[in-house]
């Protein structure tokens, strides 16, 4: 009997849930890997957007319209992404979030541009939250693409400034993944270090195969024998974790300045060895001074999704900006919102964020942090967490980079 009751109850609940879903006015797609080896990266971001949009809906929605967020699994394949994009567009989606993998982003930028050209009146906006190849807001910029993360040159700028400020680093080793992104990172480091201070010597510039190296010890040995005092790397995912782990095993305790030291699992894999050796640069960490609301958000996120940590701050920023733009435009039409986003500025938890009109690149403060055991919030469910380093705060103005973008507006 109880089972029947329960069944009836559950049926009622699902009908109600359906009914509430049907009221959604704006459909938004999240296209990223949600299964497979890269599933965790996509899922960590998806959970952030889930929470962000729940809060948005609770606060009245996007210019008064309720938002429905749907995840589309692209298995991190550019081809599959286009299939999913097509599916999303056909179900009425006009806004697309994506971030994992520059190849995927490039494909989506291309596909969205083609779609918008071929189907006037059904325009789609691409909101990029993590693909940081500089070209997307430079020579390859598009009116339909907005980037909420600082691109590789900007992050490198923060890192090289930090190296100069520290003053104790004269020999730098560059190591990265052997593909377009890794090459871009290395090129940026060489260029910026050369321009800023020719006294700093680059003692090694190495690219290793993407995702294929199991033991980084030989690379670490090369770094050791080069006499480097710091390592710069754009590595992400497993290549990040294994690199620093091999360094710790070999007793290499020089600073590793990274883009993605905050990847899921990196700190846990290193343990205490991460303190003072692992650095990352991003748009905000949980242990910065912040408002009680921000702390509450961080805790709510952790509570809801215990597998992950509050890492994708920019996901929340992007949703806030979208909301502000829709209100400014007084519409949820993509072209109107896109125009409203240009030049829009809002106040985030860790400082203001502005969408530069000329290339659609967000300008925001960057923070360099390292791992510490003296923190409010740990990561990977251990007590270690990220802590701002001295002089690690980079203002949006000084992080800004010029652009070569020649935007073509519709």
């Amino acid at each position, binding site marked *: 009997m109880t089972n029947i009751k329960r069944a009836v109850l559950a049926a009622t609940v699902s009908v109600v849930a359906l009914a509430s879903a049907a009221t959604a006015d704006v459909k938004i797609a999240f296209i990223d890997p949600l299964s497979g080896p890269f599933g965790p990266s996509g899922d960590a971001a998806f959970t952030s957007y889930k929470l962000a949009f729940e809060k948005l809906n609770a606060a009245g929605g996007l210019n008064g319209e309720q938002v429905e967020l749907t995840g589309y699994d692209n298995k991190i394949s550019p081809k599959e992404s286009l299939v999913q994009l097509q599916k999303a567009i056909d179900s009425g989606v006009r806004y697309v979030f994506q971030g994992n993998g520059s190849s995927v982003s490039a494909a989506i930028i291309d596909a969205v541009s083609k779609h918008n050209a071929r189907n006037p009146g059904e325009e789609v906006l691409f909101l990029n939250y993590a693909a940081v190849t500089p070209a997307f807001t430079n020579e390859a910029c598009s009116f339909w693409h907005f980037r909420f993360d600082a691109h590789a040159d900007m992050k490198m700028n923060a890192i090289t400034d930090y190296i100069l400020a520290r003053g104790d680093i004269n020999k730098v080793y560059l190591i990265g993944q*052997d593909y377009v992104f890794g090459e871009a990172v290395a090129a940026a480091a060489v260029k910026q270090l050369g321009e800023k201070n020719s006294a700093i010597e680059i003692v090694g510039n190495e690219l290793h*195969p993407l995702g294929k190296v*199991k033991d980084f*010890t*030989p690379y670490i*040995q090369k770094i050791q*024998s080069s006499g480097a005092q710091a390592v710069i790397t754009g590595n992400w995912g497993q290549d990040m974790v294994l690199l620093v782990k091999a360094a710790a095993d070999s*007793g290499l305790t020089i600073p590793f300045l990274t883009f993605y030291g905050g990847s899921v699992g990196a700190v*846990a894999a290193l343990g205490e060895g991460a303190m003072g050796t692992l650095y990352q640069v991003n748009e905000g960490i949980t242990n910065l001074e912040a408002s009680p609301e921000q702390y509450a958000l961080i805790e709510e996120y952790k509570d809801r999704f215990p597998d992950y940590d509050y890492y994708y701050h920019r996901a929340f920023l992007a949703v806030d900006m979208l909301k502000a733009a829709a209100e400014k435009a007084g519409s949820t039409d993509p072209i109107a919102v896109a125009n409203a986003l240009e030049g829009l500025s809002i106040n985030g938890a860790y400082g203001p964020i502005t969408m530069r009109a000329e290339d659609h690149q967000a300008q925001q403060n960057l923070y360099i942090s390292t791992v510490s055991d003296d923190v409010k919030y740990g990561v990977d469910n251990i007590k270690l967490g990220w802590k701002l380093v001295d002089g690690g705060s980079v203002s949006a103005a000084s992080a800004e980079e010029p652009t070569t973008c020649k935007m073509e507006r519709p």
Partner: protein
Amino acid sequence: METIVFSLLNGTIYGLLLFMLSSGLTLIFSMMGVLNFAHASFYMLGAYCAYTIMGVTNFWLALLLAPILVGAVGMGVERWGLRKVHANGHVAELLFTFGLAYLIDEVVKIIWGRTSVNYKVPESLDFTLFTLYGSNYPAYRIFILFVSIFMLVSLWYLLKKTRVGLIIQAALTHPHMVGHLGHNVPLVFMGVFGAGCALAGLAGVIGGNYFITDPAMAVQMGPIVFVVVVVGGLGSLEGAFVAAMLIGILQTSAVSINASFADIFGFLGMTATSEVGGITIASLAPMLPFLMLVLILIVKPTGLMGDREV
């Protein structure tokens, strides 16, 4: 000089791990003709089981129990899976293990999650053993060395000095003969498959915390293991050993070579800025095993030391 010493040392350890993985596959492949695609998945299972057991008890118990557990799973797979497919031929068996690899991957993700687990080197082994040319050498690597050598010697003893070993050896070179000896062939097969998987599991136990324990570890290790078995030669554990060491050292030392094609073929007018000239030997390292695989199969299909063609 120091590069060479480190390359040799690390290459040896990597090679020994590879051998531990591939010795099981060589046994299985040579006797049953099954190129077990899921072999690396058992390696992964070994690492995850060890992680769980270590969480409850300690590393040493995990070292003992995890391989046994993995071996038992392997026996089950043979008994209720492979044996059924056997009648449909080798291609069906190969495809069965191919599907099994998918399945194990997914099950691992359900049980242990999609991210890497924090499977750590035990504290009793987590120290620096010696310092060489200013670089610390972790004790755990030497521990891997010892476990591998211990396993190597035990395997050798088992094969050369015991009755079971003689049967297995006979079966390695003449798989059809075992039945005539009056042995229960299905039982022998099940045992060998289980033992092979247990060896893979053991490699997982000591390799999982040396590298990283995540759901992708099987996919990454899988193809290399085939290479070792095929390059080494069918039915030849010695061959597998040589191939494993060769690939281990080759891959490790290629990384430390800075030369690019332009340096080597510079006399032909190739420049470092050209696309081909810019390729370094180091970046070729992961491709080397597969190049070896293809070349060996074309030039010497019996492998380095095997006596039968694949």
